[in-house]
């Protein structure tokens, strides 16, 4: 048990690549938390995908013991939060478990869109904030300019900002000292009934479900029986530990402390992030205010390339979902693609991460259908339906109107690219809300339909700004618009897996893009194949794939019989990767590529 005055809990907020993970590594290293020989870069990013992509997906925590200049040893608990917008909900809930934040800004880059998004979450959580200017080892670093920018744009005092290099270790002792002197200690009552916040939970193949908690009041001990106030479920504490960042068993956790427990919980889904944990007997009376659960905003179909792998896919998805409560799935059948799952994600990056993990960790080749947002369909009979899949669009005569999700997007971009960014947003049906300057960077705020962002917005933004723009968004609500379902017909048969919701004004151009792409992707057949995009019964774009005219081997003698037979056998096997559509065979790559979200 540690006295409250000797505890500091904090998180680090930063735009991606500004050095959050590197700084965490340095803090861990400098305090000897991890032996030098176990040190590896990005200690807290434990998933392969996190390490590879250099992003943090799950919140993670580490307990550091720091002997301060005042001669006292302090316990510093760092909760590392994801930087990406898709995982913003993880950020907000982790923030509630700590009292302060280090705001890391790359001194060569300055404030970026995610800097803003994340720092506002910290401010909302009433954090004390210590600005840190990273990468001052680089010649391009402009600490003074960036300080001014922090004050201008974010509106917090940056006069005491700490210049550091997380890479070389310069300034790291100052950061540790500032954590102790500038951040407040946690509050809490050791004698009150147990009240702990469920910060996160994950599945560990060895230990089962692991629950990360922050104790607010009271003390939790190994062997005790606890209750989850929201679900009402009761568990015995089998293991209680702190993360350094590997688990180190501990007898008890008191107010202000952060640690994990396990207790024969079967699924991550049995836990509710933000739930309050108390003792089964003599529990606390009032629960902590809960978080709103994260809801999926982007949906797409995932189908196995090889129809025989459906059961493997089901297994893989179930296992993955055990550890990712924000990911939803339900079975889907498509005439074109067979059996698969309609899956919901927090955003496109989340979608990609899940798809990558399924393909990589479970070795399943997947067909991903066009990502779609959730539409609200107001029916004539007064009922409201949520549309996750354009294929399920009800008959239009029964529909009163359709609403689509809108976002507020913040884009920071160097002056010279501003024009292109404005044009891009305008083309995507955006409504400008704000345009301000922070030094030579412009900050634009746009109200945009989410569905225009899920297609290839990131990519276009990156390319028109040569990678210099930063982007962040959050959902703002729903608004009615002129939305229609665009169908694709191949040889006059609708291909459900290719249908999508589009704005009426954008339908022609998307339809044209789609049929042109498909014309290249579908191999020619013995007959000509019309490829059409249509709204209702009305064709809005059309291409014709001409019939195969010549396909005959010129020479075929004794030695060629074997080769030809084997080729046909191979094509027969390859046919598993084709989807029969009426008389037309569509190779599965065609689905992937026609719908490619060029993100």
């Amino acid at each position, binding site marked *: 048990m540690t006295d409250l005055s000797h505890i500091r809990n904090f998180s680090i907020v930063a735009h991606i690549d500004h050095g959050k993970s590197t700084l965490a590594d340095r803090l861990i290293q400098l305090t000897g938390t991890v032996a030098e020989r176990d040190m590896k870069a990005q200690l807290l990013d434990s998933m392969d995908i996190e390490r590879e992509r250099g992003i943090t997906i799950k919140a993670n925590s580490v307990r550091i013991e720091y002997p301060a200049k005042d001669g006292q040893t302090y316990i510093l608990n760092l909760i590392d939060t994801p930087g990406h917008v898709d995982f913003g909900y993880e950020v907000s809930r982790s923030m509630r478990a700590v009292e302060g934040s280090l705001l890391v800004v790359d001194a060569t880059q300055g404030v970026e869109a995610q800097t803003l998004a994340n720092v506002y979450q910290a401010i909302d959580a009433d954090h004390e904030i210590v600005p840190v200017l990273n990468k001052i080892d680089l010649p391009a670093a402009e600490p003074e300019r960036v300080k001014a920018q922090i004050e201008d744009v974010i509106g917090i005092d940056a006069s005491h900002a700490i210049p550091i290099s997380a890479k070389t270790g310069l300034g790291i002792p100052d950061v540790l000292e500032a954590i102790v002197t500038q951040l407040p200690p946690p509050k809490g009552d050791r004698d009150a009934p147990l009240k702990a916040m469920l910060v996160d939970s994950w599945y560990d193949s060895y230990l089962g479900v692991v629950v990360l908690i922050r104790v607010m009041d009271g003390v939790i001990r190994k062997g005790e029986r606890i209750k989850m106030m929201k679900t009402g479920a009761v568990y015995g504490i089998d293991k209680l530990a702190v993360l350094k960042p590997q688990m180190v068993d501990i007898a008890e956790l008191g107010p202000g402390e952060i640690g994990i427990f396990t207790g024969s919980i079967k699924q991550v889904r049995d836990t509710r992030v933000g739930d309050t944990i108390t003792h089964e007997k003599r529990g606390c009376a009032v629960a902590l205010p809960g978080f709103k659960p994260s809801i999926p905003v982007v949906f797409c179909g995932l189908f196995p390339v090889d129809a025989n792998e459906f059961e493997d896919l089901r297994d893989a998805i179930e296992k993955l979902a055990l550890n990712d409560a924000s990911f939803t799935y339900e079975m889907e059948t498509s005439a074109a693609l067979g059996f698969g799952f309609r899956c919901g994600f927090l955003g496109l990056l989340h979608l990609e991460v899940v798809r990558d993990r399924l393909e990589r960790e479970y070795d399943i080749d997947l067909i991903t259908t066009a990502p779609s947002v959730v539409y609200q369909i107001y029916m004539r009979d007064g009922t409201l339906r949520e549309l996750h899949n354009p294929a399920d669009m009800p008959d239009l005569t029964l529909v009163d109107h359709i609403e689509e999700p809108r976002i507020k997007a913040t884009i920071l971009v160097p002056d010279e690219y501003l024009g292109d960014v404005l044009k891009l947003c305008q083309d995507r049906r955006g409504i400008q809300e704000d345009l301000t300057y922070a030094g030579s960077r412009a900050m634009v705020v746009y109200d945009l339909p989410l569905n225009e962002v899920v297609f290839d917005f990131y990519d276009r933004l990156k390319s028109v700004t040569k990678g210099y723009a930063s982007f962040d968004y959050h959902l703002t609500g729903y608004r009615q618009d002129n939305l229609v379902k665009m169908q694709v017909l191949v040889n006059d048969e609708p291909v459900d897996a290719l249908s999508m919701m589009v704005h009426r004004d954008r339908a022609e151009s998307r339809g044209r893009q789609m049929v042109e792409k498909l014309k290249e992707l579908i191999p020619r*057949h*013995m*007959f000509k194949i019309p490829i059409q995009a249509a709204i209702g019964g009305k064709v809005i774009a059309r291409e014709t794939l001409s019939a*195969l*005219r*010549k*396909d*005959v*081997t*010129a*020479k*075929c*003698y*004794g*030695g060629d*019989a*074997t080769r*030809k*037979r084997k080729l*046909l*056998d191979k*094509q*027969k096997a390859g*046919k598993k990767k084709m989807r029969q559509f009426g008389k037309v065979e569509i190779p599965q790559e065609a689905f992937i590529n026609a719908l490619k979200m060029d993100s």
Partner: protein
Amino acid sequence: MGENLPEGGFGLYLHWPFCQAKCPYCDFNSHVAANIDQARWLRAYEAEIDRIAAETGPRLLRSIFFGGGTPSLMAPETVAAILDRVRLRWPMANDIEITLEANPTSVEAGKFRAFQAAGVNRLSMGVQALNDMDLRALGRMHSAEEAVQAFDIAREIFDRVSFDLIYARQGQSAADWRRELQQALEMAVDHLSLYQLTIEPETVFGRRHAAGKLPNLPDEDAAIDMWEVTQEICDAAGLRSYEVSNHARQGAESQHNLIYWRCGDYAGIGPGAHGRLTSSAGRAATEALRAPGAWLEAVETQGSGEVPRETLSRDDQLSEFLLMGLRLREGVSLDRLTRLGGARLNRPISELEAEGWLSQTEGRLAVTVTGRPVLEAILRRLLTD
């Protein structure tokens, strides 16, 4: 043993794997070698003939084919000695066809009479093109005039002569091809092989093509025009196609190649040669080592140049029966099709018939005139379902 084991007859293919130069479009098992010890090669062929003959027993031989490579580079004595050995091992049909592939250079033309004396009665000559510019582009060692002269010599010496042309060459138009083919028909006797240029991946052309450096190849529309020109002109000249790329007057068809397309049996001897041998144990696909040196050594030290055989299942046989047989205008016998388990193809067959790609008459199934240029697509529908 009757010659009806199986239907289609029995022939012998001998592969001579050497050429004077490697043509840039060619993916045959052909190599350029400095000095070839023909006596040593002869011993190896003889040993292989003995080995296969011991296996097949005295089956009636309908045809012998010296293919390559460039068999006209063989010494006539080598050819004569091989044929002597064959005569020793198998009974020959009275009207046996003995073909030799020849390149039309003057050196080779000088040997034609000796080949004839050795027993060769049919010559198949690789003329490829009738203008020098295209011959150079195809990497050929002879001029058009040389080829015409060589062919004239061949006509005088052999009862039966044929030549090959390659069309759909770089820069060639349908009109160019029409003129060239008309000229070719003035030379032709009763048989012609007309191949559309195929870009084979493992060749110089293949690599150039992949690198985008083989410009002006006719596109599909131009190629189909040339195909149509070919049919039209040859039909009018009485040299109808009896197979996809082979045209002949009735009765002048290559008996040897018909054995392949009718799925008969054939012994394959020489580097990379394939064979099909039916016995009470089933139908085997044989294949010899491809590399000339390795084959020679294997024959000498192991007593066989073959790689392990594959026994063809009934499905394999059905596939080969169709993919070879449907190349022929005559198509395949429905009777034999049924015996190979063709009933399971009834559905695709009737679909393809209804769509006009296949037709049945007098107990045979054949590809229609419209189907012929898209034979591979028809086979895919038949055999990959």
